């Protein structure tokens, strides 16, 4: 029977070999396969072909076998949907005579690259599964577009004057090639465009436009290649732009004033000129009551007031308001003169303190449009309150210093409070300028002799009453005696009039001033790039935390410094529009973006010195559910139902006495290796790498297309950025309102991935080509993950095969959430050197506690699942195939606890157990890791794990019902903690020699300063200090010896070693 089958099979094989197996390839004959195909959307129909060829080979000896009949070749695309390249693909018929051909396709639709595979399913020789080609990428590149690029205001082209021709710029997304392009613009009523032509090589074309109406109109442009298909009318249309007449605006500056003088100046400014002729403005200054001010600003008084006769020079003559006037109330502004100075003065002085509100207003008296503006000046005037130098009769020449005579002989200031020459100073009774009438109004005279304040008594005077008197105080004190001495005077200091004298004064002492000294960071000058001259350069930035958690939205990214941050914002209406962080346009855009062609997006420079542009690919994903990015406003209730672990014993699996699974075969293992792969939300429809992402827009109470997550992946090699892959998540989010505040947490991530091209590291045990992380080399680094795992053995001879170090097989701790429940708790990895204590809660009731043994077994099962490892890696990176690099984990024997062998005969314990009082419940697991410093690598001690022991904590559990009746309720539950902890113990690598306790504990202390080492302390002080420091690290001691021997050379060597150490500690190299 078997013989027959064999014959049949060999026959069948013979048939197949004689017929051969047919394969389809994308490419051209004789054997040029093509891995990527790209076509332009506008390409002529004849060029829309996919080259294919077929081969038929004998699978045994790989020789060609003739193809029989006609073979129909079809092609299929890997994915479809909006945003992906697509086309209607036809078929082609090939035969032995013409093995190569072209598959034609029509209706190309632009989009992202997709995979294309070609196959044939005709005849005996070809079938789909065998003949299908390896995938090639298939891209339909978007056709170029033509956009209007307004300067200044976004999306608005300003027209200077009606019915006058004017040009604006149109940007083409691609440089014109092959034939000139005719640019045709169309617009609404009142807009007339002239057709323009873009010559070969051009990217920007001026187009002439005339606006005949006074109202704004929208217009768009498109282009058509004169011959050829580079630009097509059908798909080169840019976004519409508004054309509107420029409105001149007039304003007075400053816009609000607070003055204390009887005259002030403002500037009248015409922000954009009225082209036809000069505009005449008439200005007024009015004194108004406070209540009328607002009205006067909104409706300037100059509008209604009749024009007054022309002013006479040098005199404020506005007769309407006698108090205040403008010196030159009529000004002409035109295109050459944009501004004029207006001086408002009070025509009469004040006699009492007054607060006045003066409104300065200006209106045009010529021209068609109404131009008017007004400002409010708050004037507070008090007679003689401030020193008015202009009123002083002694006002002298300010350019030459006045010489003051020697004050020792001449009374220069007979009245110190007389500050103003020629004017009566208030309350200065000795001022000769005051009339007796003025003196009567004084509230008091300024006290002390001649109106000045008395100086404080110096401490050395015998009359001094100061506190800290010397012991011999009256002995050495000074007493004054009045005699003919006129006194001591300060030297008269001339005021500084030259820069030189100023510098001499301040020279010599460091003085600080309020100033921002650092220069602003200016990116290097714009450079020529592939796409033409770059307008601007900047730095790549993402929002980052700064200060104490606040967010800086434009913080630069640092090269090769990974960044992971998030910021919380209230999504207000203002945040959902404009250039906020929720706008996708605030982030990087694909370098292939061309719809619309302007404004052009930023590109990443591959290297700041060479002007290479790194390719940028941005993928947009539209979240359907953004709840993970929105701060929850609900509070979870305390658990009130029974909750143990997220685990049930798999059916039919053998268990040992302590409730552990005895086999490691699935499904009895209980180890679940979670897939860490994150599922991405659905792609956005516009995501074809050519279309610009939409800005967020408000739709009712929802903000649409708001950015919630941004991830930049930079691929680098040496000093170059090769590529940027970015991912942006968009979502529709409810807008924040006072009643329902919505706080959105935006997440940002930037990572730098090395495109490594060197030889792999020798400790690349897993033979990976991607960067991998070590926990240190060779010993552990503090705060790096501790590596552990389970031994995989040969089933037959039980020999060591390799270590399984998957996450589920590693030692772990509880990672509890806000609810603290064990059932929701995850696994937290153990970091080397960090003593950690974690715990989670189980909620159990009477029914569980009446069955202590089962409860205990379940807990042991879960705790052992949390810390399942049989071995722990000794070093920072261990060979999984080398058993010598893993040390055994010792485990406490729980057999007696599990089998109740101790309590089996104890009647009391048994009776407790029945009544819901559990003794010796295993409620925690503790891992003790011993590590030592074994030797030195590159001058740094090697931290090696030399032993580990797992022990269990036991507790006695009983419900502590708040009121007695609760315990009777079978559904009543209470929380009990399950703990997991790790402790790192440093032990000497070698057993040390016994020492007396004092020396052992404090080898560095000279007890009571009387040790003999310190006997000659002043002489050997430095070497003593050095020795004490060296106790910290034996390393340093080694270095010290070298320095002693080699002097400077030794120190240099140690520095070099430290440098090497730094390099060796670089974590990521494959």
């Amino acid at each position, binding site marked *: 029977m078997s013989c027959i089958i064999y014959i049949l099979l060999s026959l069948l094989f013979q048939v197949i070999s004689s017929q051969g197996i047919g394969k389809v390839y994308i490419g051209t004959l004789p054997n040029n396969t093509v891995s990527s195909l790209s076509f332009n959307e506008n390409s002529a129909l004849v060029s829309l072909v996919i080259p294919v060829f077929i081969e038929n080979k004998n699978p045994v000896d790989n020789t060609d076998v003739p193809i029989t009949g006609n073979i129909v070749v079809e092609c299929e695309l890997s994915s479809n949907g909006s945003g992906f390249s697509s086309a209607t693909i036809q078929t082609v018929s090939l035969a032995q005579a013409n093995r190569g051909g072209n598959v034609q396709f029509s209706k190309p639709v632009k989009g992202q690259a997709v995979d294309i595979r070609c196959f044939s399913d005709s005849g005996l020789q070809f079938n789909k599964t065998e003949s299908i080609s390896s995938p090639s990428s298939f891209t339909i590149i978007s056709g170029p577009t033509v956009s209007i690029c307004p300067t200044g205001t976004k999306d608005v082209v300003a027209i200077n004057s009606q019915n006058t021709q004017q040009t604006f710029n149109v940007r083409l997304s691609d440089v014109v090639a092959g034939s000139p392009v005719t640019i045709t613009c169309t617009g609404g009523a009142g807009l007339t465009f002239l057709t323009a032509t873009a010559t070969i090589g051009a990217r920007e074309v001026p187009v002439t436009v005339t606006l005949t109406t006074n109202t704004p109109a929208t217009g768009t442009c498109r282009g058509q290649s004169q011959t050829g298909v580079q630009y097509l009318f059908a798909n080169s249309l840019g976004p519409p732009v508004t054309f509107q007449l420029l409105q001149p605006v007039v304003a007075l500056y400053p816009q609000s004033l607070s003055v204390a003088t009887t005259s002030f100046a403002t500037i009248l400014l015409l922000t954009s000129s009225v082209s036809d002729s000069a505009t005449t403005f008439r200005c007024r200054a009015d004194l108004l009551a406070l209540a009328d001010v607002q009205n006067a600003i909104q409706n300037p008084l100059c509008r209604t007031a009749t024009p007054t006769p022309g002013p006479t020079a040098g005199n404020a003559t506005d007769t309407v308001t006698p108090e205040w006037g403008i010196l030159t109330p009529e000004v002409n502004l035109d295109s050459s003169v944009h501004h004029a100075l207006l001086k408002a003065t009070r025509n009469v002085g004040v006699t009492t303190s007054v607060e006045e509100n003066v409104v300065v207003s200006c209106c045009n008296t010529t021209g068609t449009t109404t131009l008017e503006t007004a400002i409010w000046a708050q004037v507070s005037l008090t007679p003689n309150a401030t020193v008015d130098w202009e009123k002083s009769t002694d006002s002298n020449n300010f350019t030459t210093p006045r010489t003051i005579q020697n004050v020792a002989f001449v009374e220069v200031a007979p009245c110190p409070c007389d500050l103003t020459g020629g004017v009566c100073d208030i309350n200065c009774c000795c001022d000769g300028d005051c009339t007796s009438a003025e003196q009567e109004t004084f509230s008091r005279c300024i006290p002390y002799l001649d109106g000045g304040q008395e100086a404080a008594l110096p401490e050395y005077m015998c009359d001094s009453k100061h506190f800290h008197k010397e012991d011999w105080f009256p002995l050495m004190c000074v007493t004054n005696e009045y005699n003919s001495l006129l006194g001591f005077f300060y030297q008269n200091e001339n005021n500084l009039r030259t820069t030189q004298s100023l510098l001499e004064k301040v020279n010599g002492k*460091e003085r*600080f*001033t*309020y*100033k*921002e*000294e*650092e*220069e*602003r*960071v200016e990116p290097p000058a714009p450079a020529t790039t592939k796409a033409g001259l770059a307008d601007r350069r900047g*730095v790549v930035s993402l929002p*980052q*935390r*700064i*200060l*104490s958690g*606040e*967010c*800086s*939205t*434009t*913080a*630069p990214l*640092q090269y090769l410094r990974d960044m992971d941050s998030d*910021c*919380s*914002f*209230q999504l207000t209406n203002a945040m959902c529009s404009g250039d906020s962080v929720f706008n996708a346009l605030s982030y990087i855009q694909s370098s292939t973006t061309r719809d619309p062609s302007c404004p052009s997006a930023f590109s990443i420079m591959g290297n700041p010195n060479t002007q290479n542009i790194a390719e940028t690919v941005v993928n947009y994903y539209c979240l359907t559910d953004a709840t993970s990015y929105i*701060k929850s406003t609900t509070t979870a209730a305390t658990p009130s139902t029974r909750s143990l672990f997220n685990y049930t014993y798999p059916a039919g699996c053998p268990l040992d006495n302590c409730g552990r699974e005895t086999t490691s075969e699935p499904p009895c293992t209980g180890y679940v290796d979670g897939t860490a792969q994150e599922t991405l939300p659905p792609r956005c429809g516009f995501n074809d790498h050519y279309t610009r992402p939409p800005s967020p827009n408000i739709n009712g109470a929802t903000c649409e297309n708001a950015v919630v997550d941004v991830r930049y992946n930079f691929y680098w090699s040496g000093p170059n950025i090769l590529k940027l892959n970015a991912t942006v998540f968009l979502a529709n989010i409810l807008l924040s309102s006072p009643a329902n*505040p919505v*706080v959105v947490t935006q997440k940002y991530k930037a990572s730098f991935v090395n495109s490594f091209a060197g030889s792999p590291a020798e400790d690349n045990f897993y033979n990976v080509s991607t960067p991998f992380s070590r926990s240190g080399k060779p010993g552990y680094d503090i705060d790096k993950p501790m590596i552990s795992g389970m031994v995989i053995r040969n089933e037959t001879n039980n020999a060591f095969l390799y270590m399984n170090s998957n996450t589920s097989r590693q030692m772990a701790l509880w990672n509890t959430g806000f609810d603290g429940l064990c059932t929701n708790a995850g696994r937290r990895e153990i970091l080397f050197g960090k003593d950690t204590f974690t715990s989670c809660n189980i909620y159990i009731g009477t029914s569980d506690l009446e069955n202590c043994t089962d409860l205990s077994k379940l807990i042991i099962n879960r705790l052992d699942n949390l810390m399942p490892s049989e071995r722990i890696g000794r070093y920072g990176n261990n060979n999984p195939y080398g058993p010598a690099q893993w040390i055994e984990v010792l485990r406490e024997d729980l057999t007696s606890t599990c089998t109740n062998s101790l309590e089996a005969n104890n009647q009391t314990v048994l009776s407790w157990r029945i009544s819901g009082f559990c003794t010796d419940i295993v409620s925690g697991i503790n891992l003790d890791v011993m590590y030592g410093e074994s030797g030195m690598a590159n001058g740094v001690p090697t931290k090696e794990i030399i032993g580990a022991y797992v022990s269990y904590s036991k507790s006695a559990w009983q419900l502590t019902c708040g009121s007695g009746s609760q315990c009777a309720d079978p559904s009543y539950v209470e929380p009990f903690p399950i703990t997991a902890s790790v402790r790192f113990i440093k032990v000497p690598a070698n057993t040390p020699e016994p020492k007396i306790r004092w020396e052992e504990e404090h080898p560095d202390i000279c007890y*009571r*300063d*009387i040790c003999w080492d*310190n*006997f000659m*302390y*002043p002489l050997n002080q430095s070497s003593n200090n050095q020795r004490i420091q060296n106790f910290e690290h034996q390393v340093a001691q080694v270095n010290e010896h070298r320095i002693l021997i080699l002097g400077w050379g030794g120190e240099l060597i140690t520095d070099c070693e430290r440098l090497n150490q730094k390099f060796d500690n670089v974590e990521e190299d494959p």
Partner: protein
Amino acid sequence: MAVYEVFSHPELRRYKTHICSKASIILIVVLFVTVIPPLFVVYRSYGFWLKEGFYEEMPDIEFKRQLLLVFELENEGDFITYSTYQRYNQLQQQNLRVPLIQSREEDWNRDGKADGLDFHLEMPLQDTEKVTGVKLILIFQYKLFRYSTFTMECMAYMYHDSAKAGSKYEVFGDLKISQRTPLAHRGTDTRFNTPVVNSTSVYAKDYEFSKIFKEYTARNVTTYLQAPYTSWITGRGAGQPFVITANITYPEERYLYTTGFWYMIKWGWIQYVSVLLIFLSSLIESKCLSIKTSLYKL
């Protein structure tokens, strides 16, 4: 008949012997016994070498007119900030608001060194902006001259958070020194003269408070603002700015320093000689006696 002293004169009696003689040995032994034991006595009775000492000095402190300020506002993610560091301000953009800053350092006792700082800051705010927290770093320059010429840049940090929106925050305190290692007794000491805020950086990370504080506290000599009495005043009126006032006194301080070689020798010598005198007086007699005895026995 009374006897009286008519005349007296000292008598110098010379004892001579060979070097290799019993008297020489006795002399050496006696000398040894006289000179060495006092050294042991003073050394073993603690405090022979005065390795550290204290001195008091009025530090020369000057406010460097540098500050970093942040106002926390009520809404999530809202804040206002300002610093005198241009690069920091460039990072902040729309959250930057320039306050009015006034400061004055007064020298009350006219010793040429400032005794305190009067600081006043007004931050203009919209009426809708409610300040719930204030954090402010002021940067000072700290100089000592008495022993080593010590210079460092240091800071005062003041902060307050309140559930109630405030209008004014007032701080009254001292700028105290915190010293972990002794200063030197001579020379120029600029070990700690490093900038508190790395203002040349353009990266957000360098302006995180956690990084600033971590690097600052890693220094062995720092200052801190001791201001237990601060007042947070609520009820900001319409159109009013938020005001911070700080009255910071620069107190005279006590500094630990390592003493110099000659200082240690001087005090060691004083201790040694005072004990040596006792030994000398008691053993000088025995020397006389024993040498005489040994010689006469020859």
